[in-house]
């Protein structure tokens, strides 16, 4: 359709700014999402993820900046864009007293083309709930229905705002399967999440967002690798003093140190070298360990490394 020059950009924005009075929710954001990829906006609550996607979705006017979706702008091609994208908003209360099929048929009627109602129901695995009122659905089923309503127009881009927040593990996996299915059929996905596992599993590329800015961007693997270490050693002491930070940093194999006096985290690239050295150093101080654990470095560690806070309590 309209994709000038056949360029691969599904979403492109430059210098996006959105203010609410004094509060700057989005503070000069640039994004490029290629057609066919799954792009994630990862960040803590309040980082500006929802505002960002709602501006991209044409639901909020940006104060500054430019946006192109599929090579089109909201100001000139609103109708075509509305038909080309599917949107799931954070907590939409769909009509409680419509059945699943009625709800999907209603949304389907807004689009000139798209799949059959029952096809969509099958895709989101709600066949058994086809004629059940929305109010009787579980959280996971409601969320799948919300995604179904985003799929009824055969969108080229699917925007999902925290699609699995508050869902049980099984429902999350069902939703992930849905997203992967859409992508497998060539669709582009833009999603927000504050779950690093979700971002790592679904996204080809990520932008880590904090205070309305992109603080890092890349594939999950590259972002983790950017720590310069693949693993994290965490320990806390039962008694005695930890060695000063610069001494911990000087231990073999350590590339980063974080600590708050009680517990410490070392990012390392060779656990088998670092741990014996650490133990020997603590023994010399006469300190006893209360806890010692190692895990593979994750996006969480990237976020902590960049902001000094964790995703959950940021």
């Amino acid at each position: 359709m309209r994709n000038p020059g056949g360029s691969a950009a599904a979403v492109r924005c430059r210098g996006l700014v959105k203010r609410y009075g004094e509060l700057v929710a989005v503070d000069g954001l640039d994004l490029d999402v290629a057609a066919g990829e799954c792009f994630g906006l990862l960040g803590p609550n309040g980082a500006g993820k929802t505002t960002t996607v709602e501006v991209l979705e044409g639901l909020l006017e940006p104060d500054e900046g430019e946006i192109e979706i599929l090579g089109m702008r909201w100001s000139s091609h609103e109708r075509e864009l509305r038909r080309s994208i599917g949107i799931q908003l954070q907590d939409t209360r769909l009509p409680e007293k419509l059945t699943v099929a009625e709800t999907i048929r209603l949304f389907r009627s807004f689009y000139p083309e798209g799949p059959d109602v029952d096809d969509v129901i099958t895709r989101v695995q709600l066949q058994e709930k086809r004629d059940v009122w929305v109010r009787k659905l579980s959280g996971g089923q409601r969320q799948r229905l919300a995604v179904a309503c985003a799929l009824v127009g055969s969108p080229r881009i699917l925007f999902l705002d925290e699609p699995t927040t508050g869902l049980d593990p099984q429902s999350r996996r069902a939703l992930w399967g849905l997203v992967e299915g859409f992508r497998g059929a060539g669709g582009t996905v833009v999603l927000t999440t504050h779950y690093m596992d979700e971002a790592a599993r679904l996204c080809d590329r990520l932008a880590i967002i904090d205070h309305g800015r992109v603080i890092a961007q890349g594939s999950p693997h590259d972002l983790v690798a950017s720590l310069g270490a693949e693993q994290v050693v965490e320990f806390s002491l039962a008694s005695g003093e930890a060695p000063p930070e610069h001494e911990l940093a000087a231990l073999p194999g350590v590339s980063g140190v974080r600590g708050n006096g009680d517990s410490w985290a070392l990012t390392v690239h060779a656990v088998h070298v670092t741990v014996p050295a650490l133990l020997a150093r603590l023994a010399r101080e006469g300190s006893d360990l209360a806890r010692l654990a190692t895990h593979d470095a994750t996006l969480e560690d990237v976020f902590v490394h960049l902001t000094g806070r964790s995703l959950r309590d940021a």
Partner: protein
Amino acid sequence: MRSSLWQLTLTRLREFVREPEAVFWTFVFPIVLALLLGFAFSSRGDQDVHVGVRDGAGAAAVVAALEDVAGVRVRLLDEEESAAALRRGRVALVVVPGAAGVTYRQDPTAPGAREARLVVDDALQRGAGRRDPVRASLERVEERGSRYIDFLIPGLIGLNLLSTGLWGVGYTVVRMRAGHLLKRYMATPMRRWEFMASFLLGRLVFLAVEIAAILLFARLVFGVEVRGSLALVAAFGVLGAIVFTSFGLLVASRARTTEGIAGIMNLVAVPMWILSGVFFSYERFPEWTHGAIRALPLTPLVDGLRAVINEGATALDTAPAIAVLGAWGLVAFGSSMLLFRWR
């Protein structure tokens, strides 16, 4: 009809019939109201006049003079009791016997005050020997179309159109806004006017049932007949529904909470309940207010329905009312489209 407009209208209908309370307030409540008011005002016949006589010299003679008068209920009260009875409206008049005749104590603006005074005075004067030079007799008129229930039924239809339009639409829209459903619709290619129009169409479907139920009930229970054309009654119904559904959309165009919109709706509705002649004629208000009262949308609706149902008025007779309603419909729907906030 476009399929999306049809689906939106179907949604309105489903949401309505799946809400038993809404069905009750729309269909059953006006009938219950008609039943209560109809009996309250029609089966009672002439009402008795309640009169107090202040105890003291001469009181017994006054009581004796009033006791046998038809339609007068008299009781003997001491000074304190008579003051309390007046205050609470248990008597409309207290007769205070004196040396040179009697004094009537009453609030002349209280309901039935003048009637009580005339009836009592008449009885006392006749009892004392007055002779009436003119012979007069009473012929009771119970012509259909001129009873209170005939006056009331068109008023109730108008009232119902006002309430279902304002409350039914207003609350629904505000709940949708609070639940971000309006925003979700805005994120689709849905045409906004179709969303608004679905409320009008949804109302029109139930309108026929609503009006038919009230008219049928009034016919069967009170013998209220429609003298004019049913098509014209239906036309007024459609216009009224359009006007008040648009008012519902208009009052809901900005409100975010049901508490907030409840206040606005009362502000819009209560003046019309009182002024537009639903329960009693607005002719009782001072002459200079009539122009403003007739400009309110409920007034031409109720006046027009009354003229068609009770007097058999034609479309030509009611053209001014139709014009005022049409103008309100355009203004209200147009401004709701302009002011409507989708977030």
